Structures are given as C-alpha cells and as structure tokens.
C-alpha cells in the first residue's frame, strides 16, 4: 500500500472518530463501526469498500446466491387466479404457467381463457337462478365482451404501469395505468364483471342486487406516508 493511501485512510479514520465523539456519548463503539462501514473506503479489516470483516455486513461477492430458482407463484392483476380459475387444478396450473404462453393450446389444452369465461358465466348463472331469471354476462364498460374480457385477463395478465403520468387501476379519470395502495381494485373488478355496458347493471339500485361494490374502502390505512408508503404492521 502506498504511503499516500495510508494517509488518506488514517485521515478518514481520525475524522470518523471526531464525528463519533460528537454523537456517541455512550462510548460503546457501535457508531464507530457504522461509520467505518459507510465511509466509502476500505478500512479496518474490511474485505471490500464498507463490507466484510468483523464490523461490516458481508461483501456481496462472498455470499452464496447460486442455484436455479423455479416459479411457484405469480401475480399480475389482482384477483385473476383467485376469482376466475375455478378449480384447484387450474389455480395451481396458472401459477406455474409462463406469462406469455398462457394462450398456448398445446401446453394448456383446456385453455385458461375458456375456463375464465365459463367461471364468469357461472357467477351470473348462480345469481340468475337465485332471482329466477336467466342471466348472462353483458359487455362491460370497457366495451369488452365475455370472450375478449377473459382473453385480456388470461393471456395478458400483467399490471400495466404508465411510464409517465398518473398510475392507478382506476381513479375516476385514469384507468389501467398502475395500482396504488389505495385503489379499490375489488369494486373496479366487480364493475367490470357485473356492471354491464353502463357499469351500473347490478349496483343495488332499482331492485337489482349489489354486485358492483363490496361496500368497503381503504378505511383508516394511511396513504400519505413517505417510502415505503405502507404503515408498520399492526402490533397486536
């Protein structure tokens, strides 16, 4: 090591001790270690810059991240697999399917899209039966008929996230540009499933069942927090 480097390190260490004297009045050494590990230079017994040795976190290169990881669960839009897959077998199969190959009828001869469409109609049939009428899905407020709607759900199951501008599942103005922590994804999904072309087909008015809103909102969850934007866990 060149003398020049040693001097730089010594100066850095001395500076950090000066700093510690100002803030670490309990003199137990803990802040000294933190300073060593965040001063941007390799010092003490560090094995790299601010990592390794007895005081700092291990260096990235010394940690074993080898191995092949295989998909067991996946999620794009909220509720898709839960609501539309119907059976346990389909749910399991959906979770280990490649996102861009769910339309592959050789891999998936029973077709996720057809299953989704059948499930969508079954929800209507059960309600129709309870009401004593024949009910079918009606083209939704986005103009999607049952086949296209379920194709979008099954074959393009990803969250669309705008590069620029508002990001929301639906905020009354913008749609399908992201998902915020406060978005009412259930009411939006129910409206797309049961709202029909008007969005109000089964909204609880005019003697219709309430199928387009579950009646709950974000409640007292805080939506104003800085990063990580979510409240701490509820303790008890």
């Amino acid at each position, binding site marked *: 090591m060149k003398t020049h480097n040693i001097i730089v390190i010594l100066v850095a260490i001395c500076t950090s001790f000066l700093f510690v004297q100002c803030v670490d009045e309990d003199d137990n050494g803990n802040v000294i270690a933190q300073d060593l590990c965040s001063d941007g230079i390799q010092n003490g017994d560090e094995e790299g810059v601010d990592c390794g040795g007895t005081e700092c976190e291990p260096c990235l290169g010394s*940690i074993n*991240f080898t191995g092949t*990881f295989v*998909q*067991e*669960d996946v*999620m*794009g839009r*909220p509720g898709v*697999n*839960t*609501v539309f897959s*119907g*059976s*346990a077998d389909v*749910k399991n199969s*959906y*979770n*280990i399917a*490649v*996102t*861009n190959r769910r339309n592959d009828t050789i891999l998936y001869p029973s077709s996720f899209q057809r299953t989704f469409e059948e499930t969508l109609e*079954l*929800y209507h049939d*059960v*309600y129709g*039966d309870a*009401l004593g009428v*024949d009910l079918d899905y009606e083209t939704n407020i986005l103009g999607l008929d049952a086949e296209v709607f379920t194709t979008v759900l099954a074959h*393009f*199951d*990803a*969250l*669309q*996230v*705008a*590069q620029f*501008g508002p*990001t929301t599942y639906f905020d009354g103005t913008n749609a*399908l*540009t992201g*998902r915020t922590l*406060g978005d009412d994804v*259930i009411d939006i999904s129910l409206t797309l499933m049961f709202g029909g072309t008007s969005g109000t087909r*089964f909204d609880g008015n005019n003697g219709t069942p*309430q*199928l387009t*809103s*579950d*009646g*709950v909102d974000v*409640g007292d*969850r805080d939506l104003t927090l800085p*990063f*990580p934007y*979510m409240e*701490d866990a*509820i*303790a*008890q």
Partner: protein
Amino acid sequence: MMKKTKIFVAIGALSLTALSVFLIAADHIDSPSVAGTKVDIADLYAFEGDNPNNTVFVATLQGPLQPGQVTQNAVFDEDVMIEFNIDNTGDFKEDLVIQAVRRDSIMYFFGPAEVDSQDTGLTSNVYVNEGSGQVEISEVGETITATNNGMTFFAGPRRDYFYFDFNRFNEVASGSAAPDGFFPAGTASDFFENLNVLAIVVEVPNALLGDAPDHVGGLVGINGLPRAYNVWVSAKRKQ
C-alpha cells in the same frame, strides 16, 4: 332458459369455488400448492413514487398474518426469490427483472437486469453481478430503508393494504347472499382491516426501466391509454 343440468353444474362449481376461496383474495393463498407457504404472493402494487421520475414496486407475501406472534415470527425464506418482471416491449416476456433474496437479516436486491430472451420464463438465476443494493430487514415497529444509486429498498412486515368484504364475497359467490348481493357501506366489513403481510418495496428511477411499449389496451380496442410497462411478480424457489 337455463337448463337444470347447467344449474346443478353451476351450483356445484361455485360451491367448490366458495370453499376454495375461503381466506383467499387478490392473490392471497390463491392456490392449494402455495397456500400457507413462503412463496405465497398476496398482492402486487406499482405506482409513481413521491419523486415522479420513479416507479415503486410493492410485493406483499404470506398474507394474511395475524398481528402479534404470527407476524413477529413471519420470515422471508432464503430459498425464495421474489422477482419483479418488467416487459418494456409489449410481448409479455420479461425484459428486465428486479430480484430480492434474503441472506440472514439482509434483503439483497439485484437489477433491473436485462434478461436474455432465451432466459425468460419459469426459471431464474440471481444476477449476482448486478447487485443494486441491500437493506436490513425491519421487524415489527421498525422502518429501515436503504438507498443506493437512486434506488430505495425496504423489506419487512407491514399492514395489509388490501381491502375486501371477503366473507360476504363467499356468500355472493355461493348464491346465499341473493337477492341482495354485497352489503352497503357501513354494514360491510373489511376482512383484511387489521391483518398484516410481509412486504418488499423497491423504488426505481424510470430511467432504469427503458421506454414503455404501447398500452396493451390498444390490442382490444381500448384506445387512448398511455404507454405502459407490463409488470408481474413471481415467487421462485431454489431447486
């Protein structure tokens, strides 16, 4: 008119559905193979950060967790990689991934890393040469964050932000809630209101995500939507 057989099929199928959706919602416990395991994804959120030039990706896991001991004892599995997949060309293949893997008390992050087209799909290796940062995993009552090269990281327990009158949904799905359907506001009850999840949150400058493709809505006649990445999260277990 609906045929009797169709009704029976419908009721049978939805009874099964109602059973199988017990305690599941969004993606919480969404399939028998993952329910109750540490690969179980609860939710995915993606939104503009407080800095409008950034996008925030949130994956919640292992929900719902009861407050108290259950939440305190919940841990990320070292053999499970959480991977945010970002398609920026519109073919629904991941072009970029952000990976999170725990080692001891630290969550390590890699990427956004470019994925070779032959490497897309169900299997992944850690992009060990593209480490982007790390953060000490928070415990209940802590909020430890870390920032590196413009990216910000968090991993730990959080309140579940998913809200849903889940019990009533089961009754709606089974038909037993007919003819009323869901309860009105005030009567309805948010099943997840006082439950927790494990969360991984990473905020990324959009400059690292490339330009977004045309919005997929255009493929099905929903025009006028802004260019948008296609994003999904996967949980992958080490073999």
